[in-house]
């Protein structure tokens, strides 16, 4: 059998990451707790190396397909991968002292993180149902394990269990959908499916069945209503550092998955899935924002906030194709992509602040813990203020432009009512973000212990907050990058 050597160049970053992860895994075996920082530094270097490769590959123009068209490297993939590296790296820095304080800073944490990263990269670069599914499962399995990392904690194991069962269900739904589409089109390769669908003459009922299940799978990963039920419980039950991980980079991967499946693969069915996504988006914005108000646990509150943000993200996805017209699609999808990146950036800072307030023997879990933060540390109170403003979408933070761009795409698609609904719910949402600001600045602190922050975290969290502000003042470059990336699809 003739087995031609595939072009490995587009997958250099993945190959490097896999190799390095194995090395990290082995190296860590020989380290004791005092020298755990070697693993830490090695992991960060691995991510830096991946970034190096990705930037190098990104300089090659145009999409490059390899492994029998199962794998694609295009600008969107590279941008999202870079954002994911940053998110995972930031996550490692933020988590370090939290995990160390709780005895979880072991090799597993790093290798699981890196394997999850690998899964995400495969998802982002997939051009084939099977590669996509493989990446998804690699990422998900790592996440399940990470949630249960603190295996003696009942809530953590319960959360991991729920996540695993529901995740398995969602994977099953997704697979079922994929098989339906395979049945209708006879192909698993996304570009190919799109071509076949354009020709027409496929069984619509089978296709729609497949589409509904695929959308359900995507919706589960994004965590939109009614496939959101796992989010609050998992976010609350998992160790805060893991919550941060789940809430950040995987959302980029989920966005990429939606783009690959729906836009690359099923764009001829856009009319159908756009309506589905609109429905899910409205439900998510409504439920997420309304439920978040009633939460007293900060992680749960941020969980519901995530649900509403994913609803917002879907606004752009749901308004790309207008009456079969593609013209504004790139703008709409790039608005969604911009939203995903901005959301990740802001969420890192939001959960970063939760980790900031936690210390050995104390979990900052309640909104009350933010009381009087301004008295304890004016600078970090300011960072949290910027973060909350960005989540609420108040200028001049970047969250404003993220919301503005998806709303613009809704309006230019003629869906003014959708934009109005979105604005109304984000208005309601502003309440619970601003409540945190109010607690920080106008209430007396309950906990007066000084904040013990490691230097690396302190610098990075500050940079994170400043980035939210700076990108809010100069969002143009990132927006254009997203636009070019989507154009290159």
């Amino acid at each position, binding site marked *: 059998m003739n087995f031609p050597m595939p072009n490995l160049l587009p997958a250099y970053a993945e190959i490097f990451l896999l190799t390095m992860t194995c090395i990290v895994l082995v190296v860590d075996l020989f380290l004791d707790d005092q020298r755990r920082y070697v693993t830490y530094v090695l992991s960060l270097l691995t991510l830096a190396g991946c970034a190096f490769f990705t930037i190098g590959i990104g300089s090659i123009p145009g999409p490059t397909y390899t492994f029998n068209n199962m794998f694609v490297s295009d600008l969107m993939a590279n941008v999202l991968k870079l954002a994911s590296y940053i998110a995972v790296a930031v996550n490692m820095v933020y988590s370090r002292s939290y995990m160390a304080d709780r005895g979880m800073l072991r090799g597993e944490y790093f290798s699981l993180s890196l394997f999850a990263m690998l899964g995400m990269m495969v998802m982002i670069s997939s051009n084939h149902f099977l590669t996509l599914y493989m990446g998804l499962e690699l990422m998900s399995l790592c996440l399940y394990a990470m949630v249960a990392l603190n295996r003696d904690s009942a809530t953590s194991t319960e959360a991991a269990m*729920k996540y695993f069962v529901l995740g398995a*269900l969602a994977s099953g739904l997704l697979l079922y959908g994929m098989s339906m589409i395979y049945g209708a089109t006879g192909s698993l390769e996304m570009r190919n499916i799109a071509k076949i669908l354009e020709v027409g003459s496929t069984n619509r009922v089978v296709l729609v069945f497949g589409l509904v299940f695929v959308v359900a799978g995507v919706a589960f990963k994004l965590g939109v209503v009614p496939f959101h039920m796992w989010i609050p419980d998992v976010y609350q039950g998992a160790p805060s550092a893991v919550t941060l991980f789940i809430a950040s980079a995987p959302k980029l991967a989920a966005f990429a998955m939606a783009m690959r499946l729906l836009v690359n693969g099923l764009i001829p069915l856009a009319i159908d899935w756009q309506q589905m996504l609109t429905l899910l988006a409205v439900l998510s914005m409504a439920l997420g924002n309304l439920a978040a108000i009633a939460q007293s646990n900060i992680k749960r509150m941020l969980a519901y906030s995530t649900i509403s943000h994913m609803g917002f993200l879907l606004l752009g996805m749901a308004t790309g194709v207008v009456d079969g017209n593609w013209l504004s699609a790139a703008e709409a999808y790039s608005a969604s992509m911009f939203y995903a990146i901005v959301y990740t950036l802001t969420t890192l800072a939001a959960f970063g602040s939760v980790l900031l307030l936690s210390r050995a023997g104390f979990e900052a879990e309640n909104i009350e813990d933010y009381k009087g933060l301004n008295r304890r540390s004016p600078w970090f109170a300011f960072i949290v203020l910027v973060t909350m403003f960005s989540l609420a979408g108040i200028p001049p933070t970047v969250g404003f432009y993220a919301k503005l761009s998806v709303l613009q795409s809704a309006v230019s698609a003629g869906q003014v009512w959708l934009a109005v609904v979105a604005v109304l719910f984000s208005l309601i949402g502003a309440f619970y973000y601003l409540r945190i600001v109010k607690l920080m600045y106008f209430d007396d602190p309950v906990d007066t212990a000084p904040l013990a922050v490691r230097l690396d975290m302190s610098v990075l969290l500050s940079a994170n907050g400043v980035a939210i502000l700076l990108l809010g003042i100069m969002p143009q470059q990132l927006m254009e990058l997203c636009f070019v990336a989507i154009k290159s699809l």
Partner: protein
Amino acid sequence: MKALYLIVPFAPLVGALISGLFGRSVGRAGAHWVTILGVAISFIASCMVMSDVLEGNVFNGTLYTWLISGEARFEVGFLIDRLSALMMIVVTFVSLMVHIYTIGYMAEDPGYQRFFAYISLFTFSMLMLVMSNNFLQLFFGWEAVGLVSYLLIGFWYKRPTAIYANLKAFLVNRVGDFGFVLGIALVLSYFGTLDYAEVFKRAPELATQTMELFPGTPYLVITVICIGLFVGAMGKSAQFPLHVWLPDSMEGPTPISALIHAATMVTAGIFMVSRMSPLFEMSESALSFILVIGGITAFFMGLVAVVQYDIKRVVAYSTLSQLGYMTMALGASAYSAAMFHLMTHAFFKAALFLGAGSVIIAMHHEQDMRKMGGLRKYMPVTYLVMLIGAFANAGFPPFAGFFSKDTIIEALQASQTPGAGFAYWASLLGVFVGALYSFRLVFFAFHGEERFAKIDAHAHETHDKENTHGHDEHGHGGSPHESPTVVTLPLILLAIPSICAGWLIGTVVYGNYFGDAIFVSSGHEWIAEMGQEFHGVMGMMLHGLTSLPFWFAMLGLATAFYLYILQPDVPGVLRQKLAFFVRILDNKYGFDDFNQWFFASGAVKVGTGLWRYGDAMLIDGVMVNGTARIVGWIAGVVRWLQSGFIYQYAFAMIIGISVLLFIWVFDVTALLANWTR
């Protein structure tokens, strides 16, 4: 010349700013010197402008463009013709007299500098109003004089009555201004410009154009514009039924009653209508409306003056009545007569007010005529001036009021405009009433029994009412004596034109003095017809002696003489016999009560209702708290759904899938679309 025009309004403004902003550093004397100097310069400049205008020069130009919005330009500019020049002379002259008089009247008041700042500011505003060449600046001046009037009525801001009165003046004038602004807005929307000359030039275009205020009832646009503008004049010139604020405005210090509420500001409405004569001439309905309103005001407000005891209120009601005359003249297209009466009235009414003020000083700020009497021998100068004022007000020849009022009555007789008949009789009866209240005032206060001696002890108490009146050096308990020169000098200077100003009638009314400034359409040229029968001042006086108005005036004088000199007990008896009518007059026809009941407490009720049902129930209760409750309820439901049981979570996902499948596999949206179609 342009510089001269600028000096006229801005000299008083500079004075006002200095005495208002730096009152403490310039001191009392500094404040009155700087403002009097400003007004004096303004007066001299006005005289120079007048002499220039008499040579036939007219200036109409823009000084400053404030903003341009589309086609419309908003500008500051002057229109200096004979009409505005006359007003400038009247305003600056009376203002100058009042400034001087104030030195004496307000001598002991702690708000001395503030008062001078206000009256100078008023002079500036009034001059901007009369010199304007566009509606915008007119409106600015209109509101500015209203503002200063408000400030001055409430000058003694610690008195509840003064605060009540200035609020009332403010609110009633808002009603008038509502109409005024609507009129101006219509002018802007139909003509696209606010410039007088432009508007007048293009006015004939609107001659037959109609608009529907209510569906199905077309009105002439020009009529709506004119009535809107006139409603503004009704507020400012205190015409029925918006007159209610003027009597109460007497709560302010007397000098401003003379300046603002008799001589100048209240005549702004008359001036405005005269200025707009090209518009008003096009609408017969508006002129009729004006005639009727003027007639009602002239007669019925004069009647109220007969039962008043407060010396200033008598003069105030007489002002209302005289403003009614001017308004009637406008309605009869006798604009020149109205302006002429405006001028003579400014002089004799200022004299009357300042004379009353002089009495009030002498009586230690006592205004009730029942506590006066026999003042003639103590205050000869004031008495003489008041007597001249009364003769002028009643319209006896050769005093100024005779010429102007007689011309108006004759014009009303000649006028063919609907409503002129009513106005004519109202004006004749008004002459009788006018003579009656004028001489009642003179006889009551200056003749007869000296009633102040026995109530002198009481006078001390009234001092407290006027807490601004400190310890005076006149000495208590002594008999009243003549006021100082700063008070009497303006009185004399005002008494002179009160006698002679009427002799100018040949030039001002019949001599085509106003020229193009006033437009009278053909068919309304009754003044011109009367002019052909005018044979000099002496001839008019001789003719006047045989005419009906003179005998009505004589009758009024005789009645007053009988009631208050010959038989001083009769008025009391009459009051009892005619108790019903007296009560109506004492209640001023119940307008105040009605306004209090309907508008004031009505507004409070509406406000309370809106607050209770609109704000508290609807906005707070349903919208704010209701939203919060709904959000809370939804959040509760979601918490309940988020039960923590994994099978329920899975179930939710399955339901989600099923709904999506149901909708898309059966294409429910298309089905619904078919259904609704």
